[in-house]
């Protein structure tokens, strides 16, 4: 730690005169080096794309619920050639772009970009990220990726239409011609680079810039989640980048890395399965990249609002670490149907199911945190409990898909769609909302309306359960994914009824997000002014004044307590929390 301390003094001594208070509009809001401003940039970028992606899901659900009917109001503007009916090629583009946008341009920027940038320096007692320039570059490269992706929606022959997994050989120029998919690859490439920059920055910052006394055991679980996410990002995005680069060369320069000899133009032998390996080596850790920060935050929030220490916090962190390790060696369960060697399927099944052990540990720790607590149902707490429930059912149904017999039955069905939405989409979305409701007072200095937040929660959570549990039912009934009109198959005709209810729930959930948007912008302007510590929580970010000054901490704090020291018996009745920076005899450990 002493080494750390001197390093930090050195760094911040420079930092103080390197960039003081920015003065011009551009240096303050556009090319900003301040992690708090970059966090907000990521937030608005992510909100824009989340709206686009969510609207696409509404179109998708419309096509499934009302096949052959014109989409109301804006349909004739979007699809003029078919009088507002969503045509099959547009449908294919819609679900491709919905998946891509939600994963890479909505959840990643908000959950990792915004909350990572905002929380890491504030929660570890640093004045900024270790590499502020890299941080700025990371946002603007993400932005460039967003611009390319947006442009790809308007090119001739349309946007990418091969599914977010972008499997060759469908992704080759012969079967998906035009610029759409090439731009898609370039955009993901840019986005991936931005993620690597961010990841390196997060890892370096968390390792080097922790305040004195902030040992691993005293680190909030949020930071643990963000750290492990960054590690996975730094390790596995390069694999995706390599896979996509080869695909781009196949598309544009006539190579045949992924083309079998029979169909390649130059007769050399490639293999489409190679791409699937490269993609899922990245793709399976990616779901943990997206969910780990949410797990960390939920673990913290459950403790904060039960007003008691996080149950078995060390074991929770240990469970996160072991899941991170396991997540790197289980990707094969995405490929059981490709004719994989039967020896490998058994190994991948075993490794996949082993994930349930650490998952069980942190799940029970979450319930243990609630046990005998003093639970306050604030909006972050409600959303956190929502994560526990949605991830509960989503994670458990992973058993069906990890095992070979049921995987052969359910692969590529709506069961999979329901499962992965509940785990990595909905659970991380609700986790993101919990985090935004929790840190909004620190970010913008105002409180969000609790009443609207609760309406938002219930009108999102209940429809979400209907949507995705309904999808799992449809999947077991045989409905396969990515089909424009399931009712082409007679054995799926009776699912129209179910699909219609799922869609109605989806429209309700979409509408409910406008409550959040209204709450966000209204409270930003006219909300109740938040104090510096409205939730009465002891982590370091709440020791700073609100609004947070550019350099966060006038004096780098010294940390004496863990992040979850609530209701300590020695505290007496006057209050139930201690700041991490308070030194109380008998409770704290000296630096």
């Amino acid at each position, binding site marked *: 730690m002493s080494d750390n301390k001197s390093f930090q003094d050195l760094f911040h001594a420079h930092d103080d005169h390197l960039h003081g208070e920015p003065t011009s509009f551009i240096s303050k809001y556009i090319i900003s080096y301040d992690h708090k401003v970059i966090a907000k940039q990521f937030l608005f970028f992510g909100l824009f794309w989340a709206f686009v992606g969510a609207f696409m899901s509404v179109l998708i659900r419309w096509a499934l619920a009302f096949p052959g009917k014109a989409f109301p109001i804006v349909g004739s503007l979007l699809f003029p050639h078919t009088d507002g009916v969503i045509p099959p090629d547009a449908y294919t583009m819609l679900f491709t772009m919905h998946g891509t946008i939600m994963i890479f341009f909505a959840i990643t920027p908000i959950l990792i970009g915004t909350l990572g940038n905002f929380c890491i320096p504030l929660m570890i007692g640093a004045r900024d990220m270790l590499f502020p320039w890299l941080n700025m570059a990371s946002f603007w490269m993400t932005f460039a990726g967003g611009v390319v992706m947006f442009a790809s929606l308007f090119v001739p022959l349309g946007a990418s239409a091969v599914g977010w997994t972008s*499997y060759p050989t469908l992704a080759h120029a012969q*079967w998906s011609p035009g610029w759409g998919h090439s731009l898609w690859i370039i955009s993901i490439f840019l986005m991936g680079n931005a993620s690597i920059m961010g990841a390196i920055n997060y890892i370096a910052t968390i390792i080097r810039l922790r305040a004195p006394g902030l040992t691993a055991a005293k680190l909030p679980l949020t930071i643990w989640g963000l750290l492990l996410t960054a590690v996975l990002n730094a390790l596995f995005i390069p694999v995706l980048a390599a896979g996509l680069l080869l695909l781009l060369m196949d598309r544009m320069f006539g190579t045949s890395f992924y083309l079998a000899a029979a169909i390649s133009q130059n007769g050399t032998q490639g293999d489409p399965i190679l791409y699937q390996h490269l993609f899922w080596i990245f793709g399976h850790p990616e779901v943990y990249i997206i969910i780990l920060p949410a797990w960390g935050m939920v673990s913290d929030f459950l403790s904060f609002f039960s007003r*008691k220490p996080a149950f078995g916090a060390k074991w929770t962190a240990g469970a996160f670490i072991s899941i991170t390790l396991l997540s790197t060696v289980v990707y094969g369960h995405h490929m059981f149907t490709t004719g994989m060697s039967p020896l490998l399927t058994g190994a991948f099944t075993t490794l996949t199911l082993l994930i349930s052990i650490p998952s069980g540990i942190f799940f029970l720790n979450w319930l243990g945190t609630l046990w005998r*607590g*003093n639970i306050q149902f604030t909006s972050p707490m409600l959303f956190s409990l929502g994560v526990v429930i949605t991830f509960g059912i989503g994670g458990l149904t992973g058993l069906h898909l990890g095992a070979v017999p049921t995987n052969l039955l359910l692969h590529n069905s709506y069961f999979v769609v329901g499962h992965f939405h509940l785990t990595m989409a909905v659970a991380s979305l609700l986790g993101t909302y919990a985090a935004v409701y929790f840190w909004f007072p620190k970010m913008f200095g105002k409180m969000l309306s609790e009443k609207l937040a609760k309406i938002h929660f219930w009108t999102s959570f209940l429809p979400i359960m209907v949507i995705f549990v309904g999808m799992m039912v449809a999947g077991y009934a045989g409905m396969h994914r990515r089909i424009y009109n*399931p009712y082409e198959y007679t054995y799926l005709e009776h699912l129209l009824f179910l699909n219609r209810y799922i869609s109605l729930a989806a429209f309700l959930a979409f509408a409910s997000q406008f409550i959040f948007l209204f709450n966000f912008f209204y409270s930003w302007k006219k909300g109740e002014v938040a104090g510096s510590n409205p939730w009465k929580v002891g982590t370091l970010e709440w020791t700073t004044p609100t609004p947070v000054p550019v350099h966060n901490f006038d004096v780098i704090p010294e940390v004496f307590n863990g992040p979850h020291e609530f*209701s300590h018996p020695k505290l007496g009745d006057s209050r139930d929390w201690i700041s991490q920076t308070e030194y109380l005899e008998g409770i704290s450990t000296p630096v």
Partner: protein
Amino acid sequence: MNQKLVRILLSLVFLMSFGSMANDREMLNKQHPEADQLQVHTLGQRPEYGGESFLERYGPPENITEHGGHFDDVFAYVSWGVLIFFLAVVFGVVGFGWMYRSKPGRKAFYTTGLAEKKFTMVLDILFFITMDCYLIYFSVYDTKRFLMTVPQGPEVVEIQVMPQQWVWNFRYKGADGVFNTPDDIVTVNEMWVPNGKQVSLQIKSKDVIHGFMVPNVRRQVDAIPGQVSRIWFKPIKDGTYEIACMHLCGTAHYKMKGFMKVVDESDYQNWSREMSEWSAAKYDPDDARTHWGWQWGI
């Protein structure tokens, strides 16, 4: 006032769903008139809405193979287990949330260290044994039983399948028992198999990746260009069943539907003989599109 509002809203939702249901049925039937000709909707499928329990209505299509029921059993076991553990989570969240909700004067119980870990460990081990070990056992066991040993012998009906955008091509050996000869039977979108015989398929895609599945058979395999995939099963019930493409393969993926006709042994032999003779008679050496077979091999 509130009750009235709720009632109006609920009836609107129901009207939206049911009101247009009749039209949709007509529209759906118009969309694929060929279904009427082939009479698929009467074979192995379920009747109109109503008269069934929820589980019956939303279960998968009828199982028609010897071992298909096993997949349903594993699914059922896992699903009940998942349901029990999920209910435990829900009771934990809702129950603790209710029991320990904030009240004036309540102070939370301060926990630290690992004193209460035993409960966690016991539950975790229980979960591991009941769910994980069961599934790992069946994954390995089923792999051995269904995926390792390709059925062979004169009794086995061997078929080569080559999907392309957006059609299923099937090839039978014909009378001479060898693939890639003039008497091969080549069909499009229609696969005939005899009832009660082991059927073994080799699948290779012509262009993009497709997925072969007959939902009534309960198993699927990907069709990949440049690589032979295998699947085998024993149908035990006559009827016409739909073959679905499970893998996104382009714009018309949703229309890539084939039919599997399970017929009596004698009917199959007649059909096979007639078709083989007809193929040999009509064989055109210049029609390159029909010469796509490969050596069977193992």
